[in-house]
Protein backbone atom coordinates (compact mmCIF):
# COMPACT_ATOMS: atom_id res chain seq x y z
CA UNK A 1 0.00 0.00 0.00
CA UNK A 2 2.61 2.54 1.08
CA UNK A 3 4.73 1.53 -1.91
CA UNK A 4 1.90 2.63 -4.20
CA UNK A 5 1.55 5.94 -2.37
CA UNK A 6 5.26 6.70 -2.73
CA UNK A 7 5.04 5.75 -6.42
CA UNK A 8 2.08 8.06 -6.94
CA UNK A 9 3.87 11.00 -5.35
CA UNK A 10 7.03 10.34 -7.38
CA UNK A 11 4.96 10.23 -10.58
CA UNK A 12 3.30 13.52 -9.61
CA UNK A 13 6.63 15.23 -8.91
CA UNK A 14 8.13 14.01 -12.20
CA UNK A 15 5.07 15.17 -14.16
CA UNK A 16 5.28 18.62 -12.53
CA UNK A 17 9.00 18.96 -13.28
CA UNK A 18 8.53 17.81 -16.87
CA UNK A 19 5.59 20.04 -17.63
CA UNK A 20 7.31 22.98 -15.86
CA UNK A 21 10.33 22.75 -18.15
CA UNK A 22 8.07 22.30 -21.18
CA UNK A 23 6.27 25.51 -20.15
CA UNK A 24 9.55 27.43 -19.77
CA UNK A 25 10.71 26.12 -23.15
CA UNK A 26 7.51 27.36 -24.78
CA UNK A 27 7.82 30.75 -23.07
CA UNK A 28 11.35 31.00 -24.46
CA UNK A 29 10.13 30.09 -27.94
CA UNK A 30 7.60 32.93 -27.83
CA UNK A 31 9.77 35.48 -26.02
CA UNK A 32 13.05 35.47 -27.93
CA UNK A 33 13.01 37.49 -31.13
CA UNK A 34 15.97 36.14 -33.03
CA UNK A 35 15.86 32.72 -34.79
CA UNK A 36 19.18 31.54 -33.34
CA UNK A 37 18.33 32.29 -29.70
CA UNK A 38 14.87 30.86 -30.25
CA UNK A 39 16.53 27.59 -31.20
CA UNK A 40 17.85 27.26 -27.64
CA UNK A 41 14.45 27.18 -25.96
CA UNK A 42 13.19 23.78 -27.22
CA UNK A 43 16.44 22.03 -26.17
CA UNK A 44 15.16 22.08 -22.60
CA UNK A 45 11.87 20.50 -23.56
CA UNK A 46 13.75 17.91 -25.57
CA UNK A 47 16.01 16.83 -22.72
CA UNK A 48 14.78 17.31 -19.17
CA UNK A 49 11.12 17.97 -20.05
CA UNK A 50 10.60 14.76 -22.00
CA UNK A 51 13.03 12.95 -19.67
CA UNK A 52 10.97 13.72 -16.57
CA UNK A 53 7.70 12.81 -18.30
CA UNK A 54 9.14 9.47 -19.45
CA UNK A 55 10.52 8.82 -15.97
CA UNK A 56 7.01 9.42 -14.61
CA UNK A 57 5.66 6.90 -17.13
CA UNK A 58 8.26 4.32 -16.08
CA UNK A 59 7.59 4.76 -12.35
CA UNK A 60 3.86 4.49 -12.98
CA UNK A 61 4.21 1.29 -14.95
CA UNK A 62 6.44 -0.28 -12.29
CA UNK A 63 4.10 0.79 -9.47
CA UNK A 64 0.80 -0.34 -10.97
CA UNK A 65 1.70 -2.80 -13.70
CA UNK A 66 4.39 -5.20 -14.72
CA UNK A 67 6.85 -2.51 -15.72
CA UNK A 68 7.96 -1.14 -19.02
CA UNK A 69 11.40 -0.24 -20.38
CA UNK A 70 10.24 1.28 -23.68
CA UNK A 71 10.81 4.75 -22.26
CA UNK A 72 14.57 4.17 -22.21
CA UNK A 73 14.44 3.55 -25.96
CA UNK A 74 12.37 6.68 -26.59
CA UNK A 75 14.91 8.65 -24.57
CA UNK A 76 17.86 7.14 -26.46
CA UNK A 77 16.34 7.77 -29.90
CA UNK A 78 15.38 11.31 -28.92
CA UNK A 79 18.89 12.09 -27.67
CA UNK A 80 20.38 10.76 -30.90
CA UNK A 81 18.03 12.60 -33.28
CA UNK A 82 17.38 15.94 -31.52
CA UNK A 83 20.85 17.45 -32.21
CA UNK A 84 20.45 16.70 -35.92
CA UNK A 85 17.29 18.76 -36.34
CA UNK A 86 18.82 21.60 -34.26
CA UNK A 87 21.86 21.43 -36.50
CA UNK A 88 19.76 21.71 -39.65
CA UNK A 89 17.78 24.68 -38.31
CA UNK A 90 21.05 26.41 -37.42
CA UNK A 91 22.39 25.79 -40.92
CA UNK A 92 19.27 27.23 -42.52
CA UNK A 93 19.63 30.32 -40.31
CA UNK A 94 23.23 30.79 -41.40
CA UNK A 95 22.21 30.48 -45.05
CA UNK A 96 19.32 32.90 -44.84
CA UNK A 97 21.50 35.44 -43.03
CA UNK A 98 18.87 35.74 -40.32
CA UNK A 99 21.54 35.83 -37.61
CA UNK A 100 24.96 37.38 -37.14
CA UNK A 101 27.43 36.06 -39.69
CA UNK A 102 29.62 33.50 -37.90
CA UNK A 103 33.34 34.27 -37.60
CA UNK A 104 35.58 32.53 -40.11
CA UNK A 105 37.18 29.27 -38.95
CA UNK A 106 40.86 29.68 -37.98
CA UNK A 107 42.43 26.82 -39.91
CA UNK A 108 40.14 26.01 -42.84
CA UNK A 109 38.67 28.11 -45.63
CA UNK A 110 35.02 28.29 -44.66
CA UNK A 111 32.21 26.55 -42.80
CA UNK A 112 30.93 23.48 -44.59
CA UNK A 113 27.42 24.94 -44.92
CA UNK A 114 28.76 27.94 -46.83
CA UNK A 115 30.96 25.75 -48.99
CA UNK A 116 28.60 25.60 -52.00
CA UNK A 117 29.60 25.47 -55.67
CA UNK A 118 29.77 28.82 -57.51
CA UNK A 119 26.84 27.89 -59.74
CA UNK A 120 24.47 27.42 -56.81
CA UNK A 121 25.30 30.63 -54.93
CA UNK A 122 22.82 32.73 -56.87
CA UNK A 123 20.00 30.44 -55.78
CA UNK A 124 20.45 31.24 -52.10
CA UNK A 125 22.67 34.32 -51.86
CA UNK A 126 24.69 34.43 -48.64
CA UNK A 127 24.68 37.74 -46.76
CA UNK A 128 28.44 38.30 -46.65
CA UNK A 129 29.02 38.01 -50.41
Amino acid at each position, binding site marked *: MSFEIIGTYLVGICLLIGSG*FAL*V*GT*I*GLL*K*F*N*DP*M*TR*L*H*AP*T*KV*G*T*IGIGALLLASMIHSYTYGDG*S*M*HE*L*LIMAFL*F*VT*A*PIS*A*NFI*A*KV*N*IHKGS*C*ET*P*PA*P*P*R*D*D*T*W*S*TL*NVPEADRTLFPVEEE
Partner: protein
Amino acid sequence: MTRFFHWLFPHPLLTVLLALVWILLQNNFSAGMVVYGVILGIVITKGTAVWWPERPGNINLARMFSYSIIVLWDIMIANIQVAWIVISVPNNKLKPAWIVVPLDLVQPEAITVLAGTITLTPGTVSADLSDEGHSLLVHVLHTDDPQADLDEIKQRYERRLKEIFL
Protein backbone atom coordinates in the same frame (compact mmCIF):
# COMPACT_ATOMS: atom_id res chain seq x y z
CA MET B 1 39.28 -18.10 -35.37
CA THR B 2 39.71 -14.33 -35.10
CA ARG B 3 39.15 -14.04 -38.84
CA PHE B 4 35.87 -15.92 -38.51
CA PHE B 5 34.92 -13.64 -35.60
CA HIS B 6 35.65 -10.58 -37.74
CA TRP B 7 33.65 -12.07 -40.59
CA LEU B 8 30.65 -12.83 -38.39
CA PHE B 9 30.76 -9.59 -36.38
CA PRO B 10 31.89 -6.70 -38.58
CA HIS B 11 30.78 -4.30 -35.83
CA PRO B 12 30.64 -6.26 -32.55
CA LEU B 13 29.41 -3.32 -30.45
CA LEU B 14 26.61 -2.61 -32.92
CA THR B 15 25.52 -6.26 -32.69
CA VAL B 16 25.30 -6.00 -28.90
CA LEU B 17 23.45 -2.68 -29.17
CA LEU B 18 20.91 -4.07 -31.66
CA ALA B 19 20.28 -7.13 -29.46
CA LEU B 20 19.75 -4.80 -26.48
CA VAL B 21 17.32 -2.59 -28.44
CA TRP B 22 15.41 -5.70 -29.54
CA ILE B 23 15.08 -6.95 -25.95
CA LEU B 24 13.91 -3.50 -24.79
CA LEU B 25 11.41 -3.33 -27.65
CA GLN B 26 9.96 -6.72 -26.67
CA ASN B 27 9.75 -5.60 -23.06
CA ASN B 28 10.47 -9.03 -21.67
CA PHE B 29 13.74 -10.77 -21.00
CA SER B 30 13.99 -14.43 -21.97
CA ALA B 31 16.61 -16.64 -23.58
CA GLY B 32 14.63 -16.86 -26.82
CA MET B 33 14.49 -13.09 -27.12
CA VAL B 34 18.25 -12.80 -26.54
CA VAL B 35 18.96 -15.37 -29.25
CA TYR B 36 16.60 -13.66 -31.67
CA GLY B 37 18.16 -10.27 -30.85
CA VAL B 38 21.67 -11.58 -31.49
CA ILE B 39 20.52 -13.12 -34.81
CA LEU B 40 19.05 -9.76 -35.82
CA GLY B 41 22.27 -8.05 -34.70
CA ILE B 42 24.36 -10.33 -36.92
CA VAL B 43 22.05 -10.13 -39.97
CA ILE B 44 21.73 -6.34 -39.85
CA THR B 45 25.44 -5.67 -39.29
CA LYS B 46 26.40 -8.13 -42.04
CA GLY B 47 23.85 -6.60 -44.40
CA THR B 48 24.99 -3.03 -43.86
CA ALA B 49 28.76 -3.68 -43.48
CA VAL B 50 29.24 -2.93 -47.19
CA TRP B 51 28.33 0.71 -46.62
CA TRP B 52 30.42 1.00 -43.46
CA PRO B 53 33.65 -0.84 -44.23
CA GLU B 54 35.91 0.90 -41.72
CA ARG B 55 35.38 -0.15 -38.17
CA PRO B 56 35.61 2.65 -35.60
CA GLY B 57 38.69 2.53 -33.42
CA ASN B 58 38.74 1.13 -29.94
CA ILE B 59 36.34 2.68 -27.47
CA ASN B 60 37.00 2.78 -23.76
CA LEU B 61 33.57 1.64 -22.52
CA ALA B 62 34.18 2.35 -18.82
CA ARG B 63 35.17 5.94 -19.55
CA MET B 64 32.24 6.22 -21.98
CA PHE B 65 29.92 5.29 -19.11
CA SER B 66 31.36 7.89 -16.73
CA TYR B 67 31.22 10.44 -19.56
CA SER B 68 27.48 9.74 -20.00
CA ILE B 69 26.90 10.28 -16.28
CA ILE B 70 28.77 13.61 -16.40
CA VAL B 71 26.80 14.72 -19.46
CA LEU B 72 23.44 13.78 -17.88
CA TRP B 73 24.38 15.75 -14.75
CA ASP B 74 25.47 18.75 -16.87
CA ILE B 75 22.21 18.61 -18.82
CA MET B 76 20.24 18.93 -15.57
CA ILE B 77 22.35 21.81 -14.21
CA ALA B 78 22.35 23.65 -17.55
CA ASN B 79 18.57 23.15 -17.87
CA ILE B 80 17.98 25.02 -14.63
CA GLN B 81 20.43 27.78 -15.57
CA VAL B 82 18.88 28.26 -19.01
CA ALA B 83 15.33 28.15 -17.62
CA TRP B 84 16.37 30.99 -15.29
CA ILE B 85 17.86 32.94 -18.23
CA VAL B 86 14.64 32.45 -20.25
CA ILE B 87 12.50 33.77 -17.42
CA SER B 88 14.67 36.54 -15.98
CA VAL B 89 16.82 38.06 -18.74
CA PRO B 90 15.00 40.53 -21.02
CA ASN B 91 15.61 40.28 -24.76
CA ASN B 92 17.72 43.44 -25.08
CA LYS B 93 20.11 42.31 -22.33
CA LEU B 94 20.65 38.89 -23.89
CA LYS B 95 24.20 38.38 -25.14
CA PRO B 96 24.24 35.54 -27.70
CA ALA B 97 27.61 34.73 -29.23
CA TRP B 98 29.31 32.48 -31.75
CA ILE B 99 32.17 30.39 -30.42
CA VAL B 100 34.70 28.69 -32.67
CA VAL B 101 36.02 25.52 -31.06
CA PRO B 102 39.31 24.36 -32.59
CA LEU B 103 39.13 20.57 -32.60
CA ASP B 104 41.88 18.22 -31.51
CA LEU B 105 39.67 15.21 -32.21
CA VAL B 106 40.02 13.60 -35.62
CA GLN B 107 37.68 10.57 -35.62
CA PRO B 108 34.27 11.37 -37.16
CA GLU B 109 32.53 9.38 -34.40
CA ALA B 110 34.25 11.41 -31.67
CA ILE B 111 33.37 14.73 -33.34
CA THR B 112 29.75 13.58 -33.70
CA VAL B 113 29.54 12.73 -30.00
CA LEU B 114 31.09 16.11 -29.07
CA ALA B 115 28.67 18.04 -31.31
CA GLY B 116 25.72 16.05 -29.96
CA THR B 117 26.81 16.70 -26.37
CA ILE B 118 27.10 20.43 -27.02
CA THR B 119 23.61 20.57 -28.53
CA LEU B 120 22.00 18.46 -25.78
CA THR B 121 23.45 20.70 -23.08
CA PRO B 122 20.99 23.62 -23.03
CA GLY B 123 22.45 27.03 -23.75
CA THR B 124 24.77 25.83 -26.49
CA VAL B 125 23.97 24.54 -29.97
CA SER B 126 26.60 23.21 -32.36
CA ALA B 127 25.79 24.80 -35.68
CA ASP B 128 28.40 23.75 -38.18
CA LEU B 129 31.73 22.12 -38.89
CA SER B 130 34.43 23.79 -40.97
CA ASP B 131 34.85 22.32 -44.43
CA GLU B 132 37.87 20.20 -43.52
CA GLY B 133 36.71 19.35 -40.03
CA HIS B 134 39.21 21.30 -37.95
CA SER B 135 36.81 23.52 -36.03
CA LEU B 136 33.28 23.44 -34.70
CA LEU B 137 30.92 26.41 -34.75
CA VAL B 138 28.90 26.73 -31.54
CA HIS B 139 26.14 29.21 -30.75
CA VAL B 140 25.77 30.28 -27.12
CA LEU B 141 22.50 31.69 -25.81
CA HIS B 142 23.83 34.04 -23.16
CA THR B 143 27.44 34.57 -22.15
CA ASP B 144 29.57 37.27 -20.59
CA ASP B 145 32.83 35.54 -21.32
CA PRO B 146 32.94 33.43 -24.52
CA GLN B 147 36.51 32.35 -23.78
CA ALA B 148 35.41 30.70 -20.51
CA ASP B 149 32.69 28.73 -22.33
CA LEU B 150 35.23 27.64 -24.94
CA ASP B 151 37.64 26.48 -22.22
CA GLU B 152 34.86 24.55 -20.52
CA ILE B 153 33.94 22.68 -23.72
CA LYS B 154 37.62 21.89 -24.37
CA GLN B 155 38.40 20.85 -20.80
CA ARG B 156 35.22 19.11 -19.78
CA TYR B 157 34.14 17.28 -22.91
CA GLU B 158 36.87 17.18 -25.52
CA ARG B 159 39.65 16.12 -23.15
CA ARG B 160 37.50 13.20 -21.93
CA LEU B 161 36.48 12.21 -25.47
CA LYS B 162 40.14 12.03 -26.45
CA GLU B 163 40.58 9.38 -23.73
CA ILE B 164 37.47 7.46 -24.89
CA PHE B 165 38.18 7.25 -28.63
CA LEU B 166 41.68 5.83 -28.62
